[in-house]
Structure formats: C-alpha cells, structure tokens
C-alpha cells in the first residue's frame, strides 16, 4: 500500500496516473511496462475518457491513454460525417477492440468540421498515437463555455486513479 502511495505521488509529479488494478488478470509483459496512463497538460478531459484540445475555434477530440489501455487493440473506428452535429455527453462514434464496440461521447457540443480518415486504414493509431495522430474528430464548438466543466490533466489523473481503485 505504501509503495502505491509513493508511486502515486511520484506519478503526480510526472503528470501520470496509475492504471494498474489490484485485481488485474495476468498481463503480457508489454502492458506491465505500461502501468501508468499518460495525460497531456493543457488538454481537457471528460469523465467518459475523451480528451479535447481547444485551439481558437477548433476542438480536436480523441480518447485518452487510460481509455485505449482499457480497450485493448483498436481494430475498427466508426466516425460521423463532416457537418454532423454533436452534443456534449452524447455518442458520436464507436471503437471496436477485443470483440467489443464501445461508444465514444463528445465532450462538447458543436459541428463536426473534420474527421480523421487515417483511422479507417489504421485504427491502431488510437493505441500508438493517442493524443496526436489518433485524434478522431474536429469540432467547431457551439458553446465554448462547456469546456470549463471538463477536467484538467491533474483532475483527470486523479479521476482515473479513483476509478481504477475499484
């Protein structure tokens, strides 16, 4: 327990969150080395594990490192068409991994102005380049104040820790 507390405060200093679960089934060696989920300072986060990068009039959205780790290898991504409206907290698409499709929710409301077509050929970008090439949609926010109610990187890291402590 003490080790976990130390690791947790070290992780906080490094802006990481611990994803390891006490009841984890045996993991292959590659995921043991990925014990901590990463976050990006400056991004905002929803409690359904999506991230938002807000620059000017554009909100770029994807799912977080914590989410992709819990999903497993993504084999298929379903995205909306450009021009579609999205609503904060509602689904806009889905990802498939390990024979499970998981809905992805939009952290903000607005209009989809671009979707990441690379994900059709390379859905695994969500796993390997979670915060960069693995982006899913770009939205023109209809109400930028919605971003205020999202978590920052520190709050989100803590949120993940608490969720994983189940």
């Amino acid at each position, binding site marked *: 327990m003490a080790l976990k507390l130390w690791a947790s405060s070290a992780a906080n200093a490094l802006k990481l969150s611990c994803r390891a679960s006490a009841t984890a*089934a045996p993991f292959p060696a590659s995921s043991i080395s990925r014990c901590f989920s990463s976050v990006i300072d400056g991004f905002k986060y929803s409690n359904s594990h999506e991230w938002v990068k807000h620059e000017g009039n554009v909100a770029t959205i994807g799912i977080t490192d914590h989410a992709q780790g819990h999903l497993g290898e993504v084999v298929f991504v379903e995205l909306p068409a450009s021009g579609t409206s999205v609503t904060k907290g509602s689904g806009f698409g889905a990802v498939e991994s390990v*024979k499970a499709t998981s809905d992805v929710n939009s952290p903000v409301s607005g209009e989809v102005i671009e979707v990441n077509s690379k994900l059709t050929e390379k859905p695994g970008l969500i796993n390997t380049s979670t915060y960069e090439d693995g982006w899913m949609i770009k939205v023109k926010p209809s109400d930028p104040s919605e971003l205020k109610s999202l978590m920052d990187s520190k709050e989100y890291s803590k949120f993940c820790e608490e969720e994983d402590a189940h």
Partner: protein
Amino acid sequence: MNLQRTTLKAYKFGIVNYLNALKLQERLSGERKAGDIQDTILSLQHPPTYTLGKRRTDHNLLVTESELQAMGAELHYTERGGDITFHGPRQAIIYPIISLRAIGFGARKYVEGLESIMIEVASLYGVNAHPGKAGETGVWVGDRKIGAIGVRISSGITSHGLAFNIDPDLNYFKHIVPCGIRDKGVTSLRREAQMQLPADEVIHDQLIRSFAKTFHFKDIQWSQGGLISLADEIK
C-alpha cells in the same frame, strides 16, 4: 479494494427470437443507464440465426440470404463487436446488462472475464478450454472454438455477450467463415466432454453463477423471463 456488493438480477428464458431479445436488451440498457434497474443478466437460446457485428463483414457469409431463409435461419446486422457468427438451439446465450463504470472495468477486462467464465464451466465437464491469442477473442479447445463473444458498451453499459456451444448443430457453421477466422474449426461441449451432459438449463445456470462470482456480485436473484413482459417486444 472495493468489491461490488450488489445483487445480479437473472432472467431465464427458453428460445427467444433474436430481434425480440435485442429490443429487450435495448430497453434494459436504457433503464440501467438511467439507474432505474440493477445489473441484469439474460439467459436464453435463439432459433437458427446468423448475426453480423458493427463492421458488417458479410463477405464472411458464404451463402445468399434467400438460401439462409430456405434453411429456416434469420440474418441480423447488429451494433456489437466481433465478426459473423451463428446462434441456434442448444447453444447457451448469456446477455449481461451491467454497468462497467460501477466496477471500473474496461472492455478488455470485461471480455477476459467472459472468457474465463466459459473456461470455468467447460472445466466442470473435464474440458480444457483456453482464451484465444491476441486478436482471436473467444474460448478454444485446441484450435476449435467452443465459445464466442460479441459485446456492445454504450455509456459504460454492456449488452450482447457470449455464446457457448453446448450441443448446437455445427453444420450451420459451414455456411460462414466463423468470426472471420478461416483455418480454425468450431466445436461443442458435447463433442469435447467425455462425460454425459446434464440438461441445458444446468449449464446456463452454471454460466450465470460463474459470471456472478467473477464480477463480484453479492448474490443472484432468479426470475423466469416471462415476468419482464417479453410479449411487449413481439409486435
């Protein structure tokens, strides 16, 4: 560690048409998401039915739809993960409608749990089953598939689930590339077990009990399926 200490509500049905079961799951998922009902699990079998997942991999269907109908089978497109599969009598279908957020599980851990319950029940009959390699979710005996998984997770609530071959007519699998995997076969508990099997209901119950244990439920509240007005779903 905070173990979930709630009751699992289990509904037992006989043979249920695929679309009726789907409508029921959609209703229950909505109610579970709203917090109006507790975690629920459905236990049933389907009449001969082929289903496809969200990726719509119908290139793995080796006959035409009219040929399917001629053999008395239905075909349905769904939102679950996974490839094409067959459901039919003597195959145990288990559909858990539970909140993964409440137990902090992601898709991978949930699916591993579903695999482990089929492995555990197979072992009760002396059958040594194992999970598939990466990318081959499901439960195998050697290189023969005995159990399949296809799940949907929406707002953290699960639907669809697992299909465990007790003794279905395996010939139906010849008309598809099961789960999109070409060079592996399918099998059943009947084929693999050296001992006599009990009634299907016993095996269904064992799957539910294993589920309740694996996902840390306090206990199970059993009900016959008719009580949730399945008749409402038949329009």
